[in-house]
């Protein structure tokens, strides 16, 4: 019987072995890159909405507080989508004839719900609670950062488990005084003086010989002050039930 394998088959075999391994690695790396890309996670892509509502206009330009519309955020798991009645508190007075607001007026007048498209979505097995975060110094900006600049609302974070864990493992990097939670322009004080002024203003006790100098040190102080059990934050049962 003639020889089945020739010399060049060695090369073929090597290419297949190495190439196969590379392909597996490539698939894994590429797949993971794709699934983390905004193209996949839809970060930065505003979905269609019945009314082109602008957070930039309402928050940044008009200075309306987050809680004016999302009033349940401090008391409930859900921040809540405002009822059209809330829209109409102002829009019964201004822009009363704007065609853009027609769906809002229809909803209010006909007692029909207004159906928006969800921007941020969590899987059903994740039990996120807004009130637990905003009452403990985690700002809207930590997850919905840049909303004050958005004309049309889009996701600002992918809300992958990695994103959540990043903060649950290192809350110091994101925590701020409770009073600053709804301030989208908050920056941690840079100088010792500013820091002292802020801590005094909010009545946060500190060691005057050891005043925090940056976010990390401030964060450590606040985590202790707010009784946040950091080690517990990455327990499965904190988010999954």
């Amino acid at each position, binding site marked *: 019987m003639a020889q089945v394998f020739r010399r060049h088959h060695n090369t073929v075999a090597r290419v297949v072995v190495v190439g196969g391994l590379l392909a597996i690695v490539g698939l894994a790396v590429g797949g993971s890159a794709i699934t983390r890309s905004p193209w996949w996670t839809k970060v930065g892509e505003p979905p269609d909405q019945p009314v082109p509502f602008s957070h930039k206009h309402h928050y940044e330009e008009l200075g309306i507080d987050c809680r004016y519309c999302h009033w349940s955020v401090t008391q409930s798991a859900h921040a809540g989508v405002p*009822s059209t009645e809330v829209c109409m508190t102002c829009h019964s007075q201004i822009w009363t004839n704007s065609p853009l607001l027609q769906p809002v007026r229809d909803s209010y007048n006909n*007692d029909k719900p207004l159906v928006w*498209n969800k921007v941020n979505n969590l899987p059903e*097995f994740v*039990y996120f609670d807004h009130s637990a975060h905003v009452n403990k110094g985690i700002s809207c900006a930590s997850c919905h950062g840049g909303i004050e600049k958005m004309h049309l609302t889009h996701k600002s974070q992918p809300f992958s488990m990695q994103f959540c864990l990043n903060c649950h493992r290192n809350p110091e990097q994101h925590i701020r005084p409770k009073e600053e939670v709804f301030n989208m322009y908050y920056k941690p004080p840079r100088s010792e003086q500013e820091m002292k002024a802020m801590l005094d203003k909010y009545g946060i006790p500190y060691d005057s010989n050891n005043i925090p100098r940056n976010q990390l040190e401030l964060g450590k102080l606040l985590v202790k002050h707010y009784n946040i059990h950091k080690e517990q934050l990455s327990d499965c049962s904190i988010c999954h039930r």
Partner: protein
Amino acid sequence: MEETRKETQGTGEQFWRSLSELEGAPEFEEILKQEFPRQAAPLGDFVSRRQFLKLMGASMALAGLSACGYKPQGPVISRPKTPTDRIVGVSNYYATAVLTNGYAIGVLGRVYEGRPVKLEGNPDHPTSLGATDAITQAQILDLYDPDRSQTVLRFGRPETWRAFEADIQNALGQQAAKGGAGIRILTGRVVSPSLAAQIQKFLQTYPQAKWYQYEPINRDNVYEGARLAFGEWLNPICRLRNAKVIVALDSDFLYTESGAVRYAREFADGRRVRAGQADMNRLYVAEPMFTVTGMTADEHLPIRSSKIARLLYEIARLIDAPVQATVEGELSETEQKWAQVAAGDLVAHKGASLVIVGEAQPPAVHAIAHAINAHLGNIGRTVVFTAPPEEKPTLHMQDIKQLADDLKNNAVEVLIMLGGVNPAYNAPADLNFKELIPKVPFTVHHGMYVDETAALCVWHLPESHPFEAWGDVRAFDGTVTIQQPLIFPLYPNTRTTLEVMAQLNGAPAETFKLVQEHWKAAKLAPEAQFDAVWRKGVHDGVLPRTAKPVKQVALQQTPLVVQSPIYDLAPVQAGVKTYEVRFAPDPTVYDGRFANNAWLQELPKPVTRVCWDNLAYMSLKTYEELGLRRKGTWAFFEDASFVRGDAPIVTLSVNGQAMRVAAYPIPGHADDCITVHLGYGRTRAGEKGSGAGFDAYLIRTSDAPWIRTGAEVIPQAERYPIARTEEHHLIDTRQPDKLDSTDHRPIILTGLLDEFKKDPELRDKSHRKGYELKHPTMYPERWTYESYETPENHRYAWAMVIDPTVCTGCSACVTACQAENNIPVVGKTEVMRGREMLWLRIDRYFKGKVENPKVYQLPIPCMQCENAPCELVCPVAATVHDHEGLNVMVYNRCVGTRYCSNNCPYKVRRFNFYRYSYMKSPVLHLLQNPDVTVRGRGVMEKCTYCVQRISKARILAKRENRRIRDGEVVPACQQACPTQAIVFGDMNDPNSRVSQMKQQPHNFAILGELNARPRTTYLAKIDNPNPELSGAEASHATDH
């Protein structure tokens, strides 16, 4: 039967769960060895190994990809108006009431976003005291039952209310001339004052019309018994807290009878044994078959129901109670002794004792009990009497007979059956309602289901669920609860009985208006204060001062002469051996009205641990005598796959009436009699209830509604598969180093009250050392956090203690757990394969002789072991510990290897073999608790200590910057427990209730020697038998 009697074995007494365990059947050993013994059979061999591997490979590859997808982001719906009474995502609780055994029990309905998802007991309600029973818990499922009737039907064809109204007006118009002489209204027991007022108004318009009430399970005997003794119908209300000695005769006062939830609490309060507080009441129970009450008894006597009268009269005679009756029959030596000891105990506790007689016993027996209680000075102390809570008290059996006579005489032209009454199914067989109803030209049936009766009627009207409308109901002590709607009606065409009656009265209105106006007219409060009183009453779930006042009573005559003779009916009549049949309400589906409730169907019955069926229960001796026992074994399995657990079919035949039923031997049953539960064998109950079990109403007659003698038992060749759960999730109690031996470690620490008084740690018990909780270790203690920087910085260590001494095994906790945790129902076939999903099970153990064993109840949730064996074997870390000591199960990580379940010594893990949680009917989606993940196929699950409730409390406490208070986290099982046998809390707080329970000397861990360090521990089961009787029993045992 000698071979089945293995008294005690090995180091401790043997506890057994089934007869095959007791006899050491090889089948039992086989099941014990396997984690999922019934898995091989359903798979079969239609999948080849190669094909299986291919499929597995493909599914693994695809499973990886599926995790990466971002799901389409659904809609967000904004309301037009902001609701002022609730916050989105936060549940509201509304007080209302449900009818369980014909009387109201107060509940708080948890309403999430407009849909009720869970019922909790109302602490302010006199018959709830914050707890519920299993049936109450399950009523939320009835609301969402997809089989509920939704449209008006005329001869089975859809019609409109308008058409019905026109038709009935026409029919009533014809009746008006003769004062409504041809009209009959049939309802169940009416405990709604506003409904009764509407019916009375109707009867004023049609003075010749008649209103009958019929409940198959009624209190005729209780009221008649009171009349014999005191001259009027009275409702006895026990004050069990004051009772030191309770003698219950054929009475299930802790479970099926009226006021059971309150009674269970009062009873349990009298027997919580703690160090330095060893005071315990004593319960004597004589009954034909174990009930929940009987299982809790300190002294249990199996006796035929017909002999109870004889037994009670003997007690009356022994204590010189002023009563005279004609008595026949003889007591056996054991019964005589029992009566003597019980009588002695009653006399020794004058004024603090109580004789309770069951609803099934004839009036004469009740009268004798009243005479005894009066003689002992118990009346006013341990039992009081009030007027009956019904709006129109009546004798139900007499009513239904009267109606049958009217029907037979063709006196009825318009028959209106309201509120789901179902005489075609549950009326006594001799009245033959199935043939009588179609004779009436105009019949109306109003109910939640198109049931057996609806099928015979001209009109069927769909009824609203009580959670969909306003109403008012009385509890068994008369307290009124205003029922608030918890949900907007699911179906637009349903109406309540109240609405239908108001319509017939020509004054239709909304239920709110009907109820409120009734109470305005009834002068609930002076007009100026009405609004405030009404609002508070609705809010609290209790209207003030509506309980029936206690009446002073005295025996009509002394001595009381009881006219009706008392027979002890001999079992052999006319040469043929006949048996006595005792009918009893089913422990879960009651009289059949809950037959379509899948939670109740799948709940293992407290005594028998059988689900989805009713059977003919009998003693082992009777079972053998009838030749039903299989080839010298008590094992129930026909083949090696352990699937066909089947029972022999017999025919019970009495006087030409007969029923088919599967026979089942149950320890502790009296000989020569058979217990059959009502409520099964329905033909038009709905998808779940139709076809399950056997119809016992076929042999129930109006003359013998409870005890029917002279039944012939004819064994049939057929066998019937039954779903027995007593051999599921078996805990292997053999010594780990001697697995081939029959040397069993005792599963439960037990002791007598006297032993406890001498040594609260029960050290004398030879097996106590097995329960030691602390093992020497060189590793650092992982779970103690004794140093906190500040109280706020405190870390919690959740733990649970269960007190089997007060646990009655009523299973309210099991259904509460099911409701809270979205636990799916799997169906009878899957249960037979051992796949029931209930996270919390109650293990019922027997100990001692099969004729009259002691019963021990162990509710088994996840033990939340500190050294959890399940965690070590999980290849994907899907079950891990959190910092509060919970053994958490991460569903989205689980790949379904089931290693954890295999390694769990307590067998508390449940696996989703199929998509059990898939519900084809969208209405059932409304039922799901939004706080708990709905688990899919291929995922392991188990008790979480209601982690969602812990989280909720933790978030609230964090928000308010404080610690979680003791008692703030109440798991569903603890919440529902009528006897408060379950205590949950923070073990790290030395002042918490759970810590104090853990410090009790008789606290023990099941299989403590495994050093899994379970967080769930138990108190020793303490019994308080009478030494005189136990001594007699010991000598009795040596006779054999």
